């Protein structure tokens, strides 16, 4: 078995395959914990949406569907570049890998930029609960609750994006040092899993915060 061991196989593993499969299991379990983490917020959001339907609809209508949709398209294309990065890693093409990792990071940053621009806009319109919230809405508590969830959930999502960009930066660095080959590139694969998960969470956030306001 020793000929299959390279410097990249850790002590506790017998083979490189075992290491790769174990790391993948670990990432999937981690993503399940993330589902529960966001899920808790989604569930209580639903409860409050049922209690304050009209106010939540009015809050949705107040969101910028243009910026929201743009951000959705941005994030989905970052998932595309991430998938291309994984593909490049599989082919052993480290320069292409590095390029696509960088593109993903860049597009992710664009997402964050647009998000923070939206936050600033809400701040200007006095829609930040806890800091500056004023409204003449007939259900002020309900509308504030909408924005509490908006900021909490998109904020948590943005935090996950920032961490994701950090992880990609580390991978970019290692790919520049030619650490990844077609035989060993699992860290890129599982980082891709994480990135796609964060993307999917955004799609759900887009659906619950932006779409109801369209009254389709």
């Amino acid at each position, binding site marked *: 078995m020793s000929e299959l061991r390279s410097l990249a196989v850790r002590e506790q593993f017998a083979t490189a395959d075992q290491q790769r499969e174990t790391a993948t299991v670990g990432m999937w379990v981690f993503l399940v914990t993330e589902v529960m983490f966001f899920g808790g917020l989604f569930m209580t959001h639903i409860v409050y949406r049922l209690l304050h339907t009209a106010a939540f609809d009015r809050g949705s209508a107040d969101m910028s569907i243009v910026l929201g949709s743009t951000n959705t398209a941005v994030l989905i294309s970052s998932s595309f570049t991430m998938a291309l990065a994984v593909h490049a890693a599989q082919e052993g093409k480290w320069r292409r890998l590095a390029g696509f990792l960088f593109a993903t990071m860049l597009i992710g940053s664009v997402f964050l930029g647009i998000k923070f621009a939206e936050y600033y806009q809400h701040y200007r319109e006095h829609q930040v609960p*806890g800091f500056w919230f004023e409204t003449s809405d007939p259900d002020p508590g309900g509308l504030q609750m909408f924005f509490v969830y908006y900021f909490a959930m998109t904020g948590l999502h943005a935090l996950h994006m920032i961490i994701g960009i950090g992880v990609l930066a580390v991978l970019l660095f290692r790919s520049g040092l030619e650490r990844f080959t077609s035989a060993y590139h699992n860290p890129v694969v599982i980082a891709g899993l994480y990135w796609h998960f964060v993307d999917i969470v955004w799609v759900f956030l887009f659906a619950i915060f932006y779409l109801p306001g369209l009254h389709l």
Partner: protein
Amino acid sequence: MIGAVEVKPSRTYLDSQEGILSWLLTTDHKRIGLLYVFSITAFFVVGGFFALLMRLELLTPVTDLVSAETYNKLFSMHGIIMVWFFLIPSIPTTLGNFLIPMMIGAKDVAFPKLNLASWYIFNLGGLVTLYALIRGGVDTGWTFYTPFSTSYSTTYVVAAALGIFIAGFGSIITGLNFIATIHKMRAPGMTWFRLPIFIWSHYATSLIFVLATPILAITLLMVGFERILKVGIFDPALGGDPVLFQHIFWFYSHPAVYIMILPGMAVISEIVPAFSRKPLFGYKAVAYSSLGIAAIGFLVWGHHMFVAGQSLYSAMVFSILSYLVAVPSAIKVFNWTATLYKGSVSWDTPMLYAIGFIGLFTIGGMTGLFLAALGLDVHVTDTYFVIAHFHYIMVGGAVMAYLGGVHYWWPKISGKLYPEGLAKLSALIVFIGFNLTFFPQFILGYLGMPRRYAAYPDEFQVLNVLSTAGASILGVGYILPLVYLIWSWKYGKPAGPNPWRATGLEWKTPSPPPQHNFETTPVVTYDAYDYEAMKEELELV
């Protein structure tokens, strides 16, 4: 060789590397297990000290030893420390960390560095919580019910919640590590149904760790937001719902109690076959029951809220499901008992703790049946009946299992034998002290004494005095093992690899084991607890 004393000093995990840094930066799961032993023992002492003060105060019907404010902080801190900094981590992070890789024939867990990180995260959470304690404590109860915790309490709620929040990540990492380890690091031949039940139970525990703990994180985060920003999440005046807090809190906290008991059941499932010298009766039933408890445990949270204002119909559903979750626990009790039938039963200390566990867990579990009965719960919920119920399971169950497991695997962990006579005496003291402390509390609850009361009507005094007397005896029972185990670490008789003649891969290694557990990867060819197949190796007739 059985019973032979190791003459040549070999490199064990204890002396594989020297110096304090080699411990603080270790990635060896066995050393990490010992690091956790230090942490949880320290927290147990702090939590136990608060319990002692509470019981002293309750000797008299009036608040004379401490003020009402202090009493409220005492029961809150006792609960928080015991639940999150002792019970939830205890067996998994100590015995689990030490034994899981060994039992499956692996060199270590899947992610050793994450394992070390979890210990630091756990201690960081503990430090933040202790900070809250030192600054003045928290008085919301370990349950943090709103709107009291979010809008009315003037104590260090956010700090305490933050400490628990941080420690929760340690739990999640431990659970994740165990799941990956059990799935992917089993030795050749170690199929799922050859695994010891210790592994099955810890696997089920780990599923709850990863699925439930994030919900706790979100719950505490929302309490923190509400307290700092006052945006109305649980404040009815701002459109929030305080009962919603109870739903999300108990959605985590009920599975959490199964995190606290499944590892105890794991230990018992190892001790009972070992000291009956036959396989665990009904292995598959017990294995599936572990998973069943974890799964159904997620569906019963509403039984904490039968008088909280939920609808009669949801109460009915939660009641039925609560009875359903009792079935797998009953299965385990019957199978453990049946394992002794026609066995070769030895009365060593671990077995005394195990038998004590089965009896006390049965009592605790059955009082759970009382609480699951909707009509009965109305009178006894929020009284000492509930306190007695969960202490029978947590202390009479989980703590006794922990002590039993520590004694059982002590020779493996330390390479030494503990003093058997003194250990048996301590087990007896614990059993007597425990029952005297908590049985009167069932009566107190039925008589109507509410919980979290610093002062109470005179007629409840006699039972309270009995309970406090029991607590002092119980305290002695806990101090003794602390003393003699530490003594035996240095002065105990050297233990061989397998002093109990037990099955299990961990007993095939020297005591203490070397750093990487096995010289060569074992190949497993028989079932768990297969004394028949191992009888030559174990020299049994």
